[in-house]
């Protein structure tokens, strides 16, 4: 391998220097482009450790000069934040598990089981993809109002699990099952397993990648819901995090920025950490599901 002449060496070194330069240019451009993606998160976290006197300091301080955890304490003093955190967490978990079940059952049936009207029903279900949640929010509010379910978590849980948001995930599950070889299931059938057991014991374990995508999509969707809890919830202790985040104000309605940002940090950072650990699943899962503006 090492038989370069002097000429080769100089050419190689020139080429490698050129390559180093283009590397440097590439990294410089990427770093500049990365600023608006990273800086807000950095600013959110650091500002939540600033006392209110430093929050609008000039010149802006990139790192808190007098770091304090007082904003984080205030978060819990101003609102039942632990309760609100629990609300968001349990709703997200219930809806995520519920969506995985609803969508994998329906997706499996649409892909594998023959029954009269399957195509027609599938088309009708797909209508859910076309209807933005904002279109149906008025009648849904009235329906839940009639059922006495306003100011409870039921509307959020029921609509997210069974309504329009789960159509996309059903579609994903159906596509996955269509692509899955059917032989294993047929063998299990010959062994006398019924459909339910085949779905649960054969198909579901094989569908783990699709289920992961469904879970990620569903969790992020519910965790970020804002319009629905704004409309359905009235009591502070029932709020989910996105609604609670907007209510950290002083007596005059002015935003308590450092407290608000501390709450935002506690909301955003855990999900961000999970993302960094499991980013491959996140990116692939969301790229498959596709789809938010």
């Amino acid at each position, binding site marked *: 391998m090492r038989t370069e002449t002097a000429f080769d060496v100089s050419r190689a070194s020139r080429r490698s220097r050129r390559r180093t330069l283009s590397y440097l240019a590439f990294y410089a451009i990427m770093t500049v482009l990365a600023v608006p993606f990273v800086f807000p998160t950095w600013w959110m976290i650091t500002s939540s450790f600033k006392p209110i006197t430093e929050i609008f300091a000039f010149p802006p301080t990139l790192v808190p000069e007098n770091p304090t955890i007082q904003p984080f304490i205030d978060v819990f003093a101003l609102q039942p934040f632990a309760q609100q955190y629990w609300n968001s967490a349990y709703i997200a978990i219930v809806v995520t598990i519920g969506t995985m079940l609803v969508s994998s059952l329906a997706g499996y049936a649409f892909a594998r089981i023959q029954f009269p009207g399957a195509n027609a029903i599938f088309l009708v279900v797909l209508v859910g993809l076309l209807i933005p949640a904002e279109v149906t929010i*008025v009648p849904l509010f009235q329906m839940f109002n009639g059922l006495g379910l306003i100011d409870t978590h039921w509307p959020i849980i029921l609509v997210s699990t069974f309504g329009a948001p789960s159509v996309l995930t059903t579609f994903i599950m159906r596509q996955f099952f269509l692509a899955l070889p059917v032989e294993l299931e047929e063998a299990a059938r010959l062994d006398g397993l019924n459909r339910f057991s085949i779905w649960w014991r054969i198909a579901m374990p094989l569908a783990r990648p699709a289920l992961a995508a469904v879970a990620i999509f569903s969790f992020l969707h519910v965790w970020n819901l804002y319009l629905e809890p704004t409309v359905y919830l009235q009591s502070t202790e029932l709020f989910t995090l996105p609604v609670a985040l907007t209510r950290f104000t002083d007596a005059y309605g002015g935003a308590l920025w450092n407290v608000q940002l501390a709450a935002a940090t506690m909301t955003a950072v855990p999900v961000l950490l999970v993302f960094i650990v499991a980013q491959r699943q996140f990116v692939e899962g969301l790229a498959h599901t596709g789809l938010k503006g």
Partner: protein
Amino acid sequence: MTLTTVRALPSRAPARPGGAPRRRPSRHRRQDALVGYLFIAPQALGILAFVLVPLGLIAYYSAHEWNVLAGTFRFVGTENFERLFTDPQLGGVLQATTVFSIALVIANLTLALVLALLLNRRMRGVGFFRTVFFSPVVVSLVAWTIVWGFLLQADGGINGMLATIGIEGPNWLREGPTAMASVVIVQVFKNVGLNMVLFLAALQGVPHDLYEAARVDGARPSTIFWRITFPMISPTILLTVIITIVGSLQVFAQIAVLTQGGPGTSTTVLVYYLFQQAFQFGKFGYGSVLAILLFLIVLVLTIVQWMLRRKWVFHEN
């Protein structure tokens, strides 16, 4: 998404081997059909209760004056629809909606494509930057919006940094043009990573020999982009355009947190206006009419997508 695949419903009944006993499979099949209905029941009933019935109710409500605050509910016929055409604010609302959608689509797709092209190479650190550009997608929307709102205050971080280099920044969220621009920018950086990933996948699907052939022919990079890359990824571009437009019509939290539709109605997009009319002013009848309008816009966009897709099947699988 790919609604067109509906047509590709496969025939799922594998040909049964001849000579199988006749009665058992039919009982089996009936039983199987029952299981099929049971499996889809939660989803189908959910769609019935939370999509189809509400859609029907919108039509019903739109013909009524329903003022929750006053506790009145009465039939008004087409009054709400007539209001739609005489509403002095609606023109501004539709304009804001259009401006927001178009600006968002152009900014989002351009940036997404640039990022994807830059990252579509084998180099150390590419994965890291992909993670960086994607990360806002998983940051809670309201948290992301709040910190941008904080940065964009008159005496906030962005103007503070501009001031250190001697530039006096505007009061971003309180002046018409910059308020709209701010909402667009906040939304672009939040979600551009998703489109970037879709573009990256599309770019990696372009066959290498096409590029090599072009290079052998001495094509310039810009020619290669416009003659090869762009046509090859055009289905993805169309898909992301539609996804982004439909998504842009649903922008609510950003408006509610950043500008509350202001100043004036300069950032009052249709969804926010609908929310105001129905839930702040208690006008559910007129809110329902606005919901029908939103539905029709999305419907038209979807139909346009279908038609374009038919025409624009340059290469699709």
